[in-house]
């Protein structure tokens, strides 16, 4: 069995990429999804606030997903659900296992990687203390509560102030739990400001910045956590311990792009994003293999995932028609002062139509700064004023082709 485009993952990235490839004229497309329905993580994100950019209205996660599933139903895209991709070869063979189809090998002309990301766990951040029950990642608790219908606890402490943790603080409170505290090791929250307001402040849940959990106690189930203040180097300060009697700890301590399949195919991974290195059309180091959404870099807003994935899906369809792009000029993108990474990591100038959106995160909160793009000779290519910059909010700038043509060598994006 073969397809022109095989999309790995049926979440927002995969759905948008498949629909965009279809709209671009590709008529042989398959989405492979391991869950029992399409929509990915949106299905458990039942809060509202999705789609303000893309649909110009405020939707819940499942509503946003449903809009794209409805679009997909009007196409002839094949969908395999409950199907797990085991490996992808550099020759674009996709190995799948499922109850319905057993072990299948599909051949693709082009592959779109849209596997999303995974939560960091207790093991990843090495919290000391008892190994008792009652410790969940925030997303796991969200799935239990919103899809399976189980409350995971009654007295909750949340470690980390990422958006999922904040959303779960409100959700658990509305369902009758007492959320005692949200504890963040950094001096600022990693979540969106609006979520601090509507998820913590609305319910008088205290946010302890520059604090962390230094002990988890309990036999069988969590009974207590110890929270300590930390210094600038994130080391706990003795004498600052506070105890919270609780039965549940939720972890919202970051997300990691899920790239086992990308690695198995030999795709180059950027250590800064932990996602594939991509060009302006989201093509990876293997020609014809594209990547989009949280598998490339972790987004705050699904609307941006959609926009990025549409670009990748369209490019995958174009690749099936006319093969690899043949740009002679490739501009490498580097992150300068105050910038953590850039996506894309390089731009094939000759293939650029109009302008290239560039996404990145800054390293620290700052005010009244400029995002400056310079070439290798130090010449300013573009400059964008910003009133407010924060690591919790992904930034994006648009670089028009006319400006890119003036660059000598590569480009560096920095905060000045």
């Amino acid at each position: 069995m073969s397809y022109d485009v095989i999309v790995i993952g049926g979440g927002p990235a995969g759905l948008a990429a498949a629909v965009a490839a279809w709209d671009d004229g590709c008529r042989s497309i398959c989405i492979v999804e391991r869950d029992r329905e399409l929509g990915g993580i949106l299905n458990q994100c039942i809060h509202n606030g999705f789609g303000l950019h893309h649909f110009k209205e405020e939707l819940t996660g499942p509503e946003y997903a449903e809009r794209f599933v409805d679009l997909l139903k009007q196409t002839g895209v094949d969908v395999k659900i409950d199907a797990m991709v085991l490996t992808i070869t550099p020759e674009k063979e996709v190995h799948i296992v499922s109850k319905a189809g057993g072990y299948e090998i599909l051949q693709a002309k082009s592959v779109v990687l849209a596997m999303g990301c995974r939560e960091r766990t207790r093991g990843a951040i090495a919290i000391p203390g008892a190994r008792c029950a009652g410790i969940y990642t925030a997303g796991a608790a969200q799935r239990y509560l919103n899809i399976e219908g189980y409350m995971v606890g009654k007295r909750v402490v949340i470690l980390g102030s990422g958006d999922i943790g904040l959303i779960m603080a409100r959700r658990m409170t509305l369902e009758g739990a007492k959320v005692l505290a949200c504890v963040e090791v950094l001096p600022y929250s990693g979540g969106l400001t609006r979520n601090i307001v509507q998820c913590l402040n609305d319910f008088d849940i205290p946010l302890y910045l520059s604090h962390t959990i230094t002990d988890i106690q309990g036999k069988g189930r969590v009974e207590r956590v110890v929270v300590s203040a930390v210094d600038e180097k994130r080391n706990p300060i003795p004498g600052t311990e506070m105890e919270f009697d609780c039965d549940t700890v939720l972890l919202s301590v970051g997300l990691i792009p899920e790239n086992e399949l990308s690695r198995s195919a030999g795709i180059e991974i950027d250590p800064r994003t932990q996602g594939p290195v991509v060009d302006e059309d989201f093509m990876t180091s293997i020609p014809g293999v594209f990547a989009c959404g949280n598998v490339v870099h972790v987004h705050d807003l699904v609307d941006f995932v959609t926009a990025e994935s549409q670009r990748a899906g369209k490019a995958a369809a174009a690749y099936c028609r006319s093969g690899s792009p043949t740009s002679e000029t490739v501009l490498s993108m580097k992150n300068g002062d105050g910038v953590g990474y850039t996506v894309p990591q390089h731009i094939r100038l000759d293939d650029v139509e109009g302008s290239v959106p560039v996404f990145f995160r800054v390293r620290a909160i700052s005010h009244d700064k400029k995002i400056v793009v310079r070439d290798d000779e130090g010449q300013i290519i573009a400059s964008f004023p910003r009133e407010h910059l924060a690591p919790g909010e992904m930034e994006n700038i648009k670089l028009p082709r006319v400006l890119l043509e003036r660059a000598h060598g590569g480009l560096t994006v920095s905060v000045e």
Partner: protein
Amino acid sequence: MKELICITCPKGCHLKVDEANDYAVSGNACPRGAVYGRNELLHPVRVVTSTVRLEGGPTPRLNVKTDKPLPKDKMFECMALLDDVTATVPVHVGDVLLANICGTDVNIVAAKSVL
């Protein structure tokens, strides 16, 4: 002068609302911010999202939302009402499951189709 952070969209504008000057809002990047700033001081409202029991579906819960923002102080009253709601397949997104809750014109609607 009261300082607020707008929650209408993820941008999170820092608003200033002037109570002495008919609740005039500044610092907003769009008209929604002006509405939010004024409402937040006069009668704050929130969209409530939650789940209700679902019969005949692949999962035991159906996610729902208020079709309009509800007065903030009625959120827990709204949550209590949901305990007694059971939806049955087929459900379409937007189906009204509970009308005019808490003495308002706000309805609880399905936020997912399960067919």
